[in-house]
């Protein structure tokens, strides 16, 4: 057990009041700075930050709880729409994914309650089908098709190019949550191989050199908006 190391004497650290004013970004910077200066985070600062986090987490949890009613109503609407159809689970999951971009756990749990189906059965279906996502997507989706025609015409190079440009592997989202990168099997544009889909828009006959242009275009449009 490491002995309690006190901060070198004479060092004034951030006061409690300053910490309370910080937002998450500033807090991260502050902790990084402290760590850099001392090699670790001194206990008094750690305790102060911890206290602040607990207060904020509690508030966030209460806000989440208030949103639960929205989740419940959404799920009820989806179920009501498909109530009379047998075997409606997959269609309801599509509707949920269209709304949220993925299947959030809370929504799946609510669906289980509403349909009277065990949660395990719902996850059995979600995890079987490649289309349903369990993680939130990025704001923008970059998809490279890896069907046979696209594979023969060089989709491998496109995949590497996207990996280099975005810095993430397939199935991952960039840390700033802006871009999500997926590789799929065949979107049916084999005549225009290799094909990519960026934010729902299909591009055909894509070359490695075009990839950075496509990504830049998305960033530019976002900056404009």
């Amino acid at each position, binding site marked *: 057990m490491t002995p309690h190391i006190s901060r070198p004497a004479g060092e004034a650290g951030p006061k409690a009041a300053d910490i309370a004013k910080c937002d998450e970004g500033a807090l991260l910077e502050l902790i990084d700075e402290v760590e850099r200066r001392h090699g670790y985070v001194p206990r008094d600062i750690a305790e102060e930050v911890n206290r602040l986090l607990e207060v904020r987490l509690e508030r966030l949890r209460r806000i989440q709880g208030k949103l639960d009613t929205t989740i419940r109503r959404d799920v009820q609407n989806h179920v009501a729409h498909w109530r009379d159809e047998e075997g409606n689970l997959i269609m309801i999951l599509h509707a949920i994914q269209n709304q949220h971009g993925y299947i959030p756990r809370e929504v799946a749990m609510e669906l289980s309650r509403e349909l009277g189906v065990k949660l395990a059965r719902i996850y059995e279906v979600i995890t079987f089908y490649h*289309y349903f996502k369990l993680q939130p997507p990025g704001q923008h989706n970059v998809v490279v098709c890896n069907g046979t025609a696209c594979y*023969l015409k060089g989709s491998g*190079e496109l995949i590497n190019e996207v990996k280099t440009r975005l810095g993430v592997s397939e199935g991952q989202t960039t840390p700033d949550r802006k871009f999500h990168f997926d590789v799929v*099997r065949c979107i049916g544009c084999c005549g*225009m*191989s290799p094909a990519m889909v960026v934010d729902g828009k299909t591009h055909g006959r894509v070359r490695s050199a075009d990839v950075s242009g496509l990504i830049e275009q998305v960033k530019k449009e976002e900056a404009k908006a």
Partner: protein
Amino acid sequence: MNPITHEKLAAYAMVPPGPAEWIRVQLDTGGIAAGAEGVLEAIRNKRDEARLSLSVHRVGSVGYSYADPVVEVQSAGMPRTMYGRVCPGVAARIVQEHVQQQRLLDDHVIATRKRSTVLGGPITQILVKDTGTGSSDKTEFFQFSLVEEMRRRGVSDRVQVVRALDMGLYNEGVVVQLLPSAVTYANVLAPDVARIVSESLAEGKVLDDLLWSDPDLQTRIVLRNCGEIDPDSLEDYLRNAQGYQALGRVLAGMQPPDVVAEMKTSGLRGRGGAGFPTWLKWQLTANQKSPQKYVICNADEGDPGAFMDRSVLESDPHTVLEGMMIAAYAMGSTMGYFYIRAEYPKAVERVQRAIEQARAAGLLGKNILGSGFSFDAKIRLGAGAFVCGEETALIASIEGKRGSPSPRPPYPSVRGLWGHPTAINNVETLASVPAILLRGGAWYAGHGTEPSRGTKVFAVTGKVQNAQLVEVPMGTTLRQIVYEICGGVLDGKEIKAVQTGGPSGGVIPDKHLDTPVSYETLQQLGSIMGSGGMLVMDQHDSMVDVAKFYLRFCVDESCGKCAPCRIGGYQMLQILDRISRGRGAAEDLNTLRRICGAMQKASLCGLGQTAPNPVLSTLRYFIDEYKAYIEGGPSYARKMSRLQTGEAPKENLKVAATS
């Protein structure tokens, strides 16, 4: 739209053709990806600017993926012309030059394949293109020669000479097509120019020694309306595509056994790839006694590299719906489902619209056309599982469950969706049905060969010059499809193999390309017909790599229910991976064969039974490539992987195919 009665439907059959002048822009997912929507807008703007009266239509796609976006023009005083690779700038020029100035555009015309052998009247335009693969392109030279010759004879102002984008003939030297009759000359040499101008142009004589008289290799039955009508318009389908006439005839004058008999005469077999006689499937389902029966259209099209079904659904959804209704009538079913994969949003959208239009017109619902037959159709989405193309897994998916296949028997005809008798048919199969019922089973059986009748749609992609959808009668050879219809291998490279049947199929090397296409012949060669995906591979494509690609796909898509597929597939993948890294051993090839045999015999469903096909077929024809990896070791593997990523200069992988 008000509900259609039988009388109104009959009246549609007599309706005269539509507007005499039009421009059609082909809009399907491929066309839109190439920018066809911008082209449509440019044409509309230019048309409005010039205050012209011709109508601009959205239509489906004829399937010429290599030329997207495609536009067709019918305007006064000009032959009907198809243009390819049309960007908005070219689109504006089409309106200005083709329509207003009556001049064809250079370098964009796709010549008609319906060639004639007689000159019906005076020649108005001449298309020219050098279809050889030599280093110099003589198109411009011949265009110049013809113009010069015509100037010498004083006829140059009457006839326009135009450089074409595509003539539909390949490796036949310089090809010249005389419009509007479409008399086509091939292998034209410089001295022939004078004769063409003096005899054909001036005297209307056909030059028999140059004449191309072979008929078009394609017969479009399934694709008959694709690119001709607006897929979002029921009115267009009724007016211009004999829409629902087949259904009307069936409901008015045929009993279900008559329909089945007609299908038996036609010899249509399941176009999803299994080739099961369609009439027999319907008969077996019809024989079952049950209060509820279902018809399902399998639009899962999971094969990577295939897009025929997507194209048909996006370009002609009503045909598939009509086929489904005729099938339902023959079997006594009142409810149908379209199972469409979620990766095809446009197809889903267009089929949904078609269903709603049919409902509004009374063509879906109770007492259709006053016949007492009731039917309704719904859409169910797939969710990215290849195995759900298999019929029992598809049924499980519609039931909202995990897509695990079930053992057969009982077959879906006996116990299918929710325990009721169910018939599942592929999109292409259903799209053929209205044509068969309208023109007769005997007419359909007249195409193709003895055990494999009719036509098949292939999506030819990969290292091919002109990727496109091709519909040919069974019995056409692979070489004809790849070389004569699609222009041969990209960049004039040497062909190595053609792959058919997707992840369930195999490779067919060059020496077998003269095989006529049919279910039986392809099986004998170690492949299958499959849904129609046809991939062309050149000498740079490694067969070990291709086998690994397909095997990885099958392992990813395996549902995991049965051990042979779940374990066997993964073990094979590990062995192949080791081999491709240069760490394989000679016994590995035998181990692969034994695992393949086990999977084929013991797997629960078609996915596991056919997953070994790519491996077995590449072992059969390209075993030298495997041996090269095994004997060459890691250094050979490193060299090969550098070739694949293009870091090292590409040498010809001249590996002779063994039998």
